[in-house]
């Protein structure tokens, strides 16, 4: 009885409302959020290790900083692919 009612309500809701816009927004959020997880961890690793390297050997800070920016740029590219993909998705 209760299940049948829920099923009926679900069918009615699906028939009346058009969810495309909301689902597109949710999809964009999931795409960008998912794409940001890995690069977030990766950039944290890169910068953290660069800082500990600079703290151990302050005289090598210049080289480490350049290499750190390179590492950030390579890691960050994945998150930016997700950012662009979120705009490409259309309902």
């Amino acid at each position, binding site marked *: 009885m209760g299940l049948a009612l829920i099923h009926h309500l679900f069918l009615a809701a699906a028939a009346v409302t058009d969810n495309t816009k909301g689902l597109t927004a949710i999809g964009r959020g999931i795409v960008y959020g998912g794409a940001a997880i890995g690069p977030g961890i990766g950039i944290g690793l890169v910068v953290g290790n660069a800082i500990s390297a600079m703290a151990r050997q302050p005289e090598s800070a*210049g*080289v480490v900083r*350049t290499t750190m*920016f*390179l590492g950030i*740029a*390579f890691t*960050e*590219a994945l998150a*930016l*692919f997700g*950012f*662009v993909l979120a*705009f490409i998705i259309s309902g």
Partner: protein
Amino acid sequence: MNAFLAIDVPPISQVTIWGNGPGGFNKTAAIYVFAAVATLLLFVLGTRRKDALVPAGLLQNTAESGVAFVRNQIIMQTMGPDGLQYLPYLTTLFFFIFFSNITEIIPGVQFPANARFAMPMTLALATWVIFNVVGVVKQGPIHYLKNSLIPPGVPKFLLILVIPIELISTFLVRPFSLMVRLFANMLAGHLILVTFATISAALFAKSITVVIMPFSFFLLVAMTGFEILVSFLQAFIFTILTAVYIGSAMHPDH
């Protein structure tokens, strides 16, 4: 939610579609003309006093410290003394990208021209052509292909897996990620500034919510400062990656 806060965020289609002036000349094109003219004037006017050993004046100081920055921080770190012949191109690239990024925070303009991907794509294709030509000329076509597809020290049976990956990552992903990195960073920064500016304006218009306004306004100011750093950093990263790619085509790993 938008009606409640009375926030009138510009529709996202406005980010990708812009009204054109006569001959398709729009705001983006105007900013690129400004960037090209500014780069040209900086180095034409800044290097007029050739006989002066002690630099004087804002233009000459900027031009000379810019060239020294590209030479010491970019070329010497990635390519070594062999790469000094690319100093003019890389310096021009750096200042052109920086000038077309920095309009993001100039009041009245407030739009980074590189948030449209036509020019980042052109610059990335130029980088792609340059490092491929350098590799073919310096190493010969067969050696260049072999050195860029087969990393040193890979076991024979892994080659069937490694060669397609290296092919895609060297010749397809490199220019694509160069383009997307510059374009998406500037677009994201621009969207953040637009969001906080519209939120600040909407909260200021409502009499009750004006109490919350300083928070978003503070973040707007802070993000504007952060975007100065980002426009410099993106110009730096684009230039240094170009240098790294040219350097790896000149000196392959052994």
